[in-house]
């Protein structure tokens, strides 16, 4: 009996330890995430999205690049269906993370799977998959994932709130209208690191310019498809 209790205690202690390790491993990444959360809050406010809606988006959507994209497309007066389609296309990459992490979460309950999937952002995936790929036989790696994911989630909510507050202090004549485009440049350009990604970016950008006048912002979807096709073609060549 004492043995069993001891085992259970050490079990929960190592779960807590994994949780804290995961949160700690996420910390350096948060330094890069927090400014984006704040910029999102400022720009959403500048785009006259209410504080409640801007904050809600950070937990309902909980995906940086599609949140920026939604703010931009709302300002351009894009039809709802095109915003939803573009959001879907941008976030499809998460299916890759899902596929990559699935073999490690197979043994977990459905509740765990739902929670960890909600937390499966680029940054939490990057930290969790490194832990899963280590060959040591720790049994509580899902707690590590949870710690990393919750650390990121908390940081995203708090930095959004800080940004919304800052946004209400910024005079409207500052003209933050171009800052979103600069944010996209900051996200996209560092990801262009080889020939296929360069050709993908150039062809998508070119298509977007040529198709600018298409109705319902169809040019954006067309540009994305051309850019993806060119990237695949260039890589396979």
């Amino acid at each position: 009996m004492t043995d069993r209790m001891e085992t259970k205690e050490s079990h929960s202690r190592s779960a807590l330890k994994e949780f804290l390790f995961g949160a700690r491993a996420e910390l350096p990444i948060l330094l890069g995430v927090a400014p984006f959360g704040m910029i999102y809050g400022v720009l959403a406010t500048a785009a006259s999205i209410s504080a409640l809606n801007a904050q809600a988006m950070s937990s309902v959507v909980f995906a940086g690049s599609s949140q920026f994209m939604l703010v931009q497309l709302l300002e351009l007066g894009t039809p709802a269906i095109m915003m939803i389609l573009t959001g879907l296309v941008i976030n499809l990459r998460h299916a890759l993370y899902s596929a990559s992490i699935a073999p490690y979460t197979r043994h977990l309950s459905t509740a765990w799977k739902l929670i960890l999937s909600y937390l499966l952002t680029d940054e939490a995936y990057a930290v969790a998959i490194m832990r899963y790929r280590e060959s040591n036989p720790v049994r509580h790696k899902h707690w590590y994932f949870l710690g990393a994911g919750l650390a990121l989630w908390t940081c995203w909510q708090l930095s959004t709130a800080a940004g919304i507050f800052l946004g209400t202090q910024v005079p409207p004549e500052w003209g933050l209208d171009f800052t979103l485009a600069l944010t996209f440049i900051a996200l996209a350009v560092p990801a262009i690191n080889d020939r296929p990604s360069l050709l993908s970016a150039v062809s998508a950008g070119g298509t977007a310019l040529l198709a600018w006048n298409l109705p319902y912002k169809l040019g954006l979807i067309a540009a994305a498809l051309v850019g993806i096709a060119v990237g695949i073609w260039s890589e396979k060549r």
Partner: protein
Amino acid sequence: MSGIWIVMLAVGLLTFATRLSFVLLLESWQPPEIIRCGLRYVPVAVLTAIFLPEMLISDGSLNFTLLNPRLIAGIVAILVAWKTKSALWTIALGMLVYALVNLL
């Protein structure tokens, strides 16, 4: 319920479904190579398709002149992002140049 909430809920649910897909349903099916390969280019393609027209189109027409503050600030930001890989420097210097050119 306003339009923004419909969009927000739809994008949120679709994002959640995407993240959940393999974890809950398709545990043993791995996506084919062509899909993996294609998804790698999604962020770069979509983001460029959004920011390039923002730099070049003003008042509904293409503006390639060097008097276009968005074009100049955008080019500076692209160079800064490429050299430093820092989001903060990219946005800060881009905003500074945009403000300066607008003053001219």
